[in-house]
């Protein structure tokens, strides 16, 4: 008898790439999306100018492991902590945030304190982001309960 368990689980790392607020440039977000695809991840791209509420809803509906937020507008101090708070309120503590774009070095410790897992400044090689996600995803990549 052939065991049905012959089919292995096919879990993949899922990442929501989001543009929040009023900035209209998404070249960086698209390049990162492409890089994560090449690493075998499933990337959901939201499109421009989404609210933090929309991003939280999308992340939950899509059952992602990560939200990657690209911010060039300078509103990161407001939007990123708010995103973390809304995720926590929705019971999605397991969905983690990375951020990229134009963020002053001195703001990074504060953002990490407010629940952003990592900040990748513009110019970061994609491989560095991929390595981080692969390494950090090991834990949550257990079976869905």
């Amino acid at each position, binding site marked *: 008898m*052939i065991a*049905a368990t*012959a*089919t*292995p*689980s*096919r*879990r*993949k790392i899922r990442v929501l790439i989001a543009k929040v607020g009023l900035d209209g440039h998404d070249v960086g977000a698209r390049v990162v*999306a*492409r890089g*994560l*695809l*090449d*690493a*075998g*991840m*499933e*990337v*959901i*791209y*939201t*499109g421009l100018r989404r609210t933090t509420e*929309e991003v939280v*809803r*999308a992340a*939950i*509906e*899509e*059952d992602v492991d990560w939200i990657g937020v690209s911010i060039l507008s300078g509103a990161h101090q407001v939007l990123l902590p708010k995103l973390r708070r809304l995720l926590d309120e*929705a*019971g*999605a503590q397991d969905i983690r945030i990375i951020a990229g774009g134009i963020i002053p070095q001195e703001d990074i410790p504060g953002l990490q304190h407010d629940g952003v897992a990592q900040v990748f400044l513009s110019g970061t090689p994609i491989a560095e982001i991929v390595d981080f996600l692969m390494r950090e995803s090991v834990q949550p990549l257990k*079976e*869905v*309960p």
Partner: protein
Amino acid sequence: MQSAELRRIARAISTVENRAVGYEDMLAEAYRLPDWARVIGITGPPGAGKSTLVDAMTAHWAQAGERIAVLAIDPSSPYSGGAVLGDRIRRNRSAGYDNIYFRSLSSRGHVGGLTETATDLVAVLSLFGFRRVIIETVGAGQADIEVHETADCTLVLTVPGLGDGVQASKAGLMEIGDIFAVNKADMPGAADAQRTIEAALGAAYMGNPGINLRADTARTAPSLGSVSPGLAALYRRHGKFGEDAQCWVPPVLTLVAAENQGVTELAQAVDTFIGWSQQTGRSQGRSRERAYAQIMRALSALLLAPYTREAGAENFPAIVAPWIDRIAKGDASPIEAARSLFNGTLAPGTQRR
């Protein structure tokens, strides 16, 4: 829908998609439901406006208070297995509704325009109380036809200027539509595109677009022979003019999805077809066809499992490897290898594990 409920739905879909622990039990329950969500499949070539139409149609039904789910499928990379899923970008009109659940899916290497688990996911969504599911296919073109197996109503979307009449007479998309629609009808050539599709349909269907009764007068004479395997399949789905009490002729509508023009009419045509299909019992025939296709797929996966290389693995399974060596050396043909494996005989010099 509250966050907690959305999370349960999202997790259940992941469980089935990943074939994770518990998925077989969940499907055993879902497939025993007395009634499933109605499934509308939207297919068509890249750039036809499928995502924009899905946005407009979900908004239409959500506004009427329906609880509605969308499964939007995009292709996976054949090299990395990854995917960029961009169907959410077109969500504008439907963005504000709380009664819509939207999920982007990768085809995960499956050919045919859907993900392998599409029908299973419809079952699971039914379990969560959805009465209507819209599936948006990959949009790969002529080969993108599997959706007609899963959908209760298949909508084939096209746009003006894609090609001449030969495109319309090619096999594939033209044979699976219950409804056809020409999007971007404000562009030149929309009326031509509509006429071309109608002419192609006229070769197979008599009668007028929509529901025809036996007593109705035929619109066109049949230009193809009345008995052929291809037509027989169409008649099983849509009935045969002049013989069955009722038959369906796929209508060809025009719309401008981005401007929300013609969307209400299209949604009404979808519901007219689904109602007709259920009332005449045609939908039961479809369910049976779908069940057969699914059994075959699940069965082949089980049968092939011992011979199947895991995704990303470098080595071939030990039972197949000797045959691959022989074929590479010019010492055997693939069909000899397959027959031998099928009959349980081993390649010379192989130890049974």
